[in-house]
């Protein structure tokens, strides 16, 4: 069990700056994020898109913003728990017990939800029967590529993940690559490789097709794919892989007893606290009268929530407001020289 003054859920820009604010005022914190990297929507949805409304930064991309925020956190050694989703939060005496899907658990007086629009989850196949094969014959990410050796693998999707895996697996497996249209959005060099491998019969390409149904008992035997013009083909398949990108789901947050408004969490504008004492929500996921879904609003919300955390983490101390320009204490925490 990890004890910390505050736990931040979400490593997007708001979560990162909130961590900075907590450490600046002398509180410890750790961060959990379901993605495999730091940056949230900025890194997952628009790493290359320029942003023009970060105060004092005339223009930067999602990736640059993330890197700058990570740099700003350098003086503090903050522990990130990536690839983990918080599944459970419950009250234990005066603090919160928090558990992730990996079994990591925390004990903390403060939980700050900086979850954007929820956690990123893979988009899944439509046919209902797919669910029961998930994790056995159907995968949305690959942990061990050796299971596909000498098998027939049907890969769906038109982006880099689908193309990369089609090329990679074609050396040891029979690969079908299926996509809903003629154009692919992956890198041209990989696409060229796919076409080459198709020519020599290593990859079979099916475009304008989508998955119609899967057949089999414990394992998949074959799949039906349907063409835009309704024609159906049956393909023998041992494994089916889907790479349709990610979608944001509110997920377990909906079960934590918080007042929700559509997919957002209601908070006050003094502490950004939810209806549960010691649970705060900041950034895109919170709502209050006048809420603006801007990164700069998330920074403000995180700064105030961090101050609110102080009271619960240090009940016997009085919080004293200080500036980074003049406070010796803060400069010590940042590891910079005081004059």
């Amino acid at each position, binding site marked *: 069990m990890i004890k910390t003054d505050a736990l931040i859920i979400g490593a997007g820009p708001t979560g990162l700056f909130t961590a900075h604010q907590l450490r600046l005022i002398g509180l410890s914190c750790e961060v959990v994020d379901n993605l495999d990297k730091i940056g949230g929507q900025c890194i997952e*949805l628009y790493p290359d898109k320029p942003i023009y409304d970060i105060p004092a930064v005339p223009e930067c991309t999602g990736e640059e913003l993330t890197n700058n925020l990570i740099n700003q956190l350098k003086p503090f050694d903050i522990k990130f728990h990536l690839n983990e989703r918080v599944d459970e939060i419950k009250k234990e005496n005066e603090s919160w017990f928090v558990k992730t899907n990996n079994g990591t658990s925390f004990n903390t007086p403060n939980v700050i939800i900086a979850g954007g629009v929820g956690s990123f989850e893979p988009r899944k196949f439509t046919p209902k029967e797919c669910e029961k094969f998930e994790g056995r014959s159907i995968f949305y990410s690959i942990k061990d590529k050796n299971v596909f050796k000498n098998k027939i693998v049907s890969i769906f999707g038109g982006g880099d993940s689908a193309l990369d895996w089609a090329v990679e697996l074609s050396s040891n497996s029979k690969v079908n690559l299926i996509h809903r249209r003629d154009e692919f*959005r992956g890198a041209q060099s990989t696409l060229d490789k796919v076409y080459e491998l198709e020519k020599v019969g290593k990859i079979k390409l099916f475009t304008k097709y989508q998955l119609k149904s899967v057949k089999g008992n414990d394992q998949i035997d074959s799949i039906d794919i349907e063409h*835009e013009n309704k024609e159906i083909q049956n393909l023998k398949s041992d494994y089916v892989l889907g790479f349709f990108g990610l979608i944001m789901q509110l997920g377990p947050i909906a079960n934590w007893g918080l007042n929700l408004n559509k997919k957002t969490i209601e908070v006050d504008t003094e502490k950004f606290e939810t209806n549960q004492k010691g649970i705060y929500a900041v950034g895109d996921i919170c709502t209050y009268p006048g809420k603006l879904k801007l990164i700069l609003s998330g920074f403000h919300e995180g700064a105030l929530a961090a101050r609110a955390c102080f009271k619960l983490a240090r009940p016997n101390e009085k919080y004293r407001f200080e500036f980074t320009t003049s406070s010796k204490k803060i400069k010590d925490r940042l590891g910079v020289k005081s004059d």
Partner: protein
Amino acid sequence: MPKITYVENDGKSHTVEVDNGLTVMEGAVQNNIPGIDADCGGGMACATCHVYVKEEWFDKINKKSEGEDDMLDQAFEPNKFSRLSCQISVSNEIDGLVVDLPKKQ
């Protein structure tokens, strides 16, 4: 003001007036029409404002934006009349537009 009709997957239809210059997505969100999530807020960075444009309207609305098809690859059950409603701008020319909403986003 142009009227836009949104038909939910169960057949429930909503006709609302949408200001010129807004997008079909904004028209849905501002009028609380269920079935359009618009998670990214119109940045063409997700695929949660997916609609099927009625065939007779498909060629009358503005053409797909660059990269729109790439996002539609990730939509739930896309077909050849699929569009991201954040990329359809509302004008007098499309007064009466009808879009069907997918089973889910």
